């Protein structure tokens, strides 16, 4: 027998009802179902509507899909630090990567400890099975904040979103809003100076364990979208766009590289975890609105630049396709995606306050997802009812 399986079998008597460590039942249960598929899923080979895969395996797939963007984000943190301090020539690849790794790791740890901690407590308290919906949110959250975001802010925001956006709705699978985006929205509205803007938030400025370089003066680096929102902007250089595709621009940790996001997106599409309809229609909606805005002369940003800059690609691939908060009906997915793209670009172009609108667009459409579903289901019912009429 597999030693890990044996370990769990040995622990079991202690955490059952009446055991010595009953308080840790949900903790053990959570780790066991994470390591092994529980016996309660549908069996492969029999006739079932239900899939044989359980939610923890799906979650793990999404986490794997996020890894390219995360690794690239770590490298980019080091790269931006070297670029900002003028040490790009003498910085090594591994030096920059390890610097970024050390800068990002505490955020991942804080996000998981706070989020999973609350989930474990709630599961134990309500005597339910632990739900690892937070596996994905916990890795998404560090990827959508700036690298300089203080850890205590992150901890408060994670606690806020896990309790108020997830647990009070009934936990994993019941939430209306994407918890990772609620975390970001909380940070965005609570501590605007630490989250956006012309301040020094996008580039790490300090050394970590002797790695990286210290900026002598506070170095300001706006994201390309931030630059575009300022007065006197007249189009991006091809170089900026090239950097936006590879990901070597200032921005939130995981959102910059379109290539790394595309790798993850392909995995999600290939395994069928994310819906290609939602993903495609977000891009189509964004491109069409971007083209419209550009032809109306409201912005200097080309339509294809809208898709590679900021959080658009990341949101479209990983956030909009969240199966819980997006539309379930097949036609609804098109409407949902198109509107996300439309609203995101509208906010970017027409609202002078916010250079980036992807987060707000997805949260707003999360709210309407069930309404869209309702309309399509109802119209289908009406159509069939008409057909069934006796003439």
């Amino acid at each position, binding site marked *: 027998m597999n030693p890990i399986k044996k370990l769990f079998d040995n622990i079991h008597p202690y955490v059952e009802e009446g055991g010595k460590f009953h308080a840790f039942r949900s903790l053990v249960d959570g780790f066991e179902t994470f390591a092994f598929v529980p016996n309660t899923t549908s069996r492969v080979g029999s006739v079932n509507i239900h899939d044989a895969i359980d939610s923890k395996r799906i979650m793990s797939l999404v986490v794997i899909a996020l890894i390219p963007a995360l690794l690239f984000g770590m490298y980019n943190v080091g790269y931006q630090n070297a670029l900002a301090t003028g040490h790009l020539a003498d910085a090594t690849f591994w030096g920059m990567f390890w610097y970024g790794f050390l800068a990002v790791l505490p955020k991942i740890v804080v996000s998981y400890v706070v989020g999973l901690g609350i989930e474990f407590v709630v599961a134990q308290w309500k005597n339910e099975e632990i739900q690892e919906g937070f596996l994905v949110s916990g890795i998404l959250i560090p990827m959508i904040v700036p690298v300089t975001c*203080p850890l205590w*802010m992150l901890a408060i925001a994670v606690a806020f979103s896990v309790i108020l956006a997830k647990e009070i709705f009934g936990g994993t699978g019941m939430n209306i809003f994407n918890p990772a985006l609620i975390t970001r929205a909380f940070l965005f509205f609570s501590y605007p100076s630490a989250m956006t803007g012309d301040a020094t938030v996008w580039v790490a400025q300090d050394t970590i364990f002797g790695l990286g370089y210290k900026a002598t003066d506070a170095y300001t680096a706006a994201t390309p979208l931030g630059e575009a929102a300022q007065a006197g902007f007249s189009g991006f250089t091809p170089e900026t766009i090239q950097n936006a595709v590879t990901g070597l621009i200032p921005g939130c940790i995981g959102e910059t590289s379109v290539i790394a996001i595309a790798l993850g997106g392909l995995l999600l599409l290939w395994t069928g975890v994310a819906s290609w309809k939602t993903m495609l229609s977000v891009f189509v909606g964004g491109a069409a609105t971007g083209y419209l805005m550009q032809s109306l002369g409201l912005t200097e940003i080309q339509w294809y630049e809208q898709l590679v800059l900021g959080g658009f690609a990341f949101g479209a691939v990983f956030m909009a396709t969240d199966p819980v908060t997006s539309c379930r009906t097949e036609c609804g997915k098109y409407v949902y995606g198109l509107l996300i793209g439309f609203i995101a670009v509208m906010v970017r172009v027409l609202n002078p306050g916010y250079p980036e609108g992807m987060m707000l667009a997805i949260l707003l459409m999360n709210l309407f997802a069930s309404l869209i579903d309702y309309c399509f289901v109802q119209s289908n019912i009406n159509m069939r009812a008409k057909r069934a009429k006796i003439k």
Partner: protein
Amino acid sequence: MSKLFSDENKAAFTSPLNVNNPVAVQVLGICSALAVTSQLKPAIVMGLSVTVITAFSNVIISLLRKTIPNRIRIIVQLVVVAALVTIVSQLLKAYVYDVSVQLSVYVGLIITNCILMGRLEAFAMQNSPWPSFLDGIGNGLGYAAILVIVGFVRELFGFGTLFGYNVIPQFMYDAGYKNNGMMVMPAMSLIIVGCVIWAHRAYNKEEK
């Protein structure tokens, strides 16, 4: 004297403070609870104004209750409330001008506060003046209590102050602490009112 504080009269006063709280249970008067609670001082002034107006309009309507024709009773109630609101508004302007500016239209809007009309219709029209007075005081204070809780949380975390005095020490700011900008927004007060209702329901679980 014992009749004045009979069990029924006591219940008229205490029930709106907790089990029948106008904000937490009946979810009335929410708009002003969201609008004026970004700081503690306007929240308290607002709570007291509503208490005074509810109490005295309850008494006046209760005195008139037998003479008011049923078909025009809402108009009569409105006239009484409007008169009291105007008096309170003038008093606030005269004595606490800065708070009155902060509260702006919301003092005038007390006239549309659902708690007032609710108490007049549900209580003062059927009861004698003294219980009506207690009922008005109780409902006003129940409303004020929620406003003070929300105002306290919002001012403490949104501005780092209470009644305008700094309570979060400077070394916290030096260590990187920042005031929470979302607490200043009305959206957050809705969330706090929700949390208060949550705690209140959990506390009073048995009485449902």
